[in-house]
């Protein structure tokens, strides 16, 4: 074990001094351990390949810049770089989740055109008109609270201040407004779906 560590340190020194083949030996010696370590974290061959490559790019840059100062601890150092890059990978993925296309699963079931077609636009207009008509049927105090809450996006605190009633009264009016609207919808068999 100790012999190998010394050899690693020697190889690193040789590489820093310009012996390119020393890097080849180092990679050959440790590739399986490093690659398996990355794979055990990411479970994806392509990602493993990328992280492995990035790890050694970092190793090469650091060695060539003469910034390596952990003589005798080459493998743990490389493992730490790999570990940090795996964490970076997961952080990146969190921001940008990836969908895997595994034959049965099609990416087009996830990606869809969210814009409405002509028919849906007509239905949406119709539904909105119906809702407006039902609101018009509500008693004035309930209508006022509902319009402020749903169309003007006001909080119940703001509504209570504007209408001069308590928050509880405003909440109660909203509740009765919704109950009354549901009643009207049921009684008249109005279908409000898009």
């Amino acid at each position: 074990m100790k012999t190998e560590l010394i050899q690693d340190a020697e190889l690193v020194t040789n590489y820093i001094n310009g012996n390119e083949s020393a890097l080849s030996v180092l990679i050959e010696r440790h590739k399986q351990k490093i690659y398996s370590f990355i794979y055990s974290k990411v479970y994806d061959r392509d990602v493993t390949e990328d992280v492995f490559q990035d790890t050694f790019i970092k190793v090469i840059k650091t060695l060539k810049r003469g910034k390596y100062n952990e003589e005798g601890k080459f493998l743990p150092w490389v493992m730490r770089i790999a570990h940090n890059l795996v964490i970076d990978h997961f952080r990146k993925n969190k921001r940008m989740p990836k969908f895997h296309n595994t034959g049965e699963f099609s990416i087009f079931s996830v990606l869809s055109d969210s814009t409405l077609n002509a028919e849906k636009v007509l239905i949406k207009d119709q539904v909105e008109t119906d809702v407006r008509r039902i609101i018009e049927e509500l008693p004035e105090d309930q209508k006022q609270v509902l319009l402020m809450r749903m169309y003007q996006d006001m909080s119940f605190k703001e509504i209570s201040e504007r209408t001069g009633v308590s928050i509880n009264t405003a909440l109660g009016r909203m509740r009765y407004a919704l109950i009354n609207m549901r009643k009207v919808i049921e009684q008249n068999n109005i279908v409000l779906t898009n």
Partner: protein
Amino acid sequence: MAKIYSNASPKQHNLNPKDETIGFLLNYSKALSVINYNKLKFEALLN
């Protein structure tokens, strides 16, 4: 006894990177040179 529905993940031994990846790294290393200039270090990638 409760059934265990999850499969044990297959243990993969001898996982190795592709030859192309190793080749790329060795070529990258050969092409990269760091130039020292007044305490500054510049990286140059020669093809």
